[in-house]
């Protein structure tokens, strides 16, 4: 990307991405005032955030045209990240004998 013509094109992309990110931010805040149910709000919010994050990663961080090695490393990280995200499920109610109680003593059955 040392070519001047190339870099000019890239810079135009940056501004477009910037615009998209700002729109995304507006949309997230807008969705907040929409007053939808919690699962829907979560879905919308996380979806917009993921789109924004992808834009940043792909264009600002040049991931869209990165070398293969980096992809492999990121793929590995994603695999372990998924294992990590399984963790809150393991710590809460899923397949945990017993149940959380609000006081130190067990709740009545």
């Amino acid at each position, binding site marked *: 990307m040392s070519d001047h013509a190339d870099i000019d094109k890239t810079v135009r992309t940056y501004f477009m991405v910037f615009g998209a990110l700002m729109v995304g931010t507006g949309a997230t805040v807008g969705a907040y005032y929409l007053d939808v149910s919690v699962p829907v709000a979560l879905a919308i919010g996380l979806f917009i955030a993921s789109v924004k994050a992808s834009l940043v990663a792909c264009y600002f961080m040049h991931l869209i045209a990165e070398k293969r090695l980096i992809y492999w490393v990121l793929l590995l990280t994603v695999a372990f990240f998924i294992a990590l995200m399984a963790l809150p499920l393991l710590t809460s109610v899923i397949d*945990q*004998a*017993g*149940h*959380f*109680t609000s*006081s*130190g*003593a*067990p*709740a*009545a*059955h």
Partner: protein
Amino acid sequence: MMDAMFPAAASEHAGEIDNMIDAVHYLMLVLFIVWGAFFLYTLMRFRAARNPKADYVGVKSKASTVGEVLVAIAEGVLLLGFSIPMWAERVDEIPSEADSTVVRVVAQQFAWNVWYPGADGVFGEADPYLTDEATNPIGLDRDGAGADDIWTVNQLHLPVDKAAIIHLTSKDVIHSFNLPNMRIKQDAIPGLSIPVWFVPTKTTVQIREETGNPDYVYEIACAQLCGNSHYSMRGFLTVHTEEEFQAWLDEEASYLGDSGTDDFFN
């Protein structure tokens, strides 16, 4: 093979677990002997003095692959045939509370508070703010179902040949409820109430006869580091006949009748 090492077994499922540990150790022993024999022979046979020129290729046979497959199969058998079903029995097949002795154990630094539902068979409510270490360590609310509840410290009493379900929790830090004779171990985790069950098969009297030790007691040990006196967080399990157990419960209940301490404090 190794029964001599284990603490005397006194619960229904103890035999299964002991057998499994035996089986695993047989496997380990076989592997160790085969590996060891091969190893020692190799070290003798191929020492530089006897074999000055090494063989570039070495072993050509695929025997090791066969060995590895056999190990994998043995592990698979242990896993699918023993461990998984036995674990399922421990955690999924808890007997009905109606046919069992139901007890709560509330661990604390450094004692086991044992809590029985009393004559009505219903546990009362607990409120941490009612806790008084000397007179009410479990924070029991004596209003309502808690009026006849019984608590003891470090003294767990159970009837023989009847399933015991123990709901474990902790007041402060993580403890681990260890009944070596019953092959039971379960962490007591604050904020969680975890059921654990077993069927004691020998009364304290019987085990004393069997071991020839008139002072033999079933002990409750703490298996998880819980602070400076962790090492002496020792409780006692006494297994009675059904009648003796009732008699013991009645005696404990007799302290309740005239105490009248509740309205004194509140």
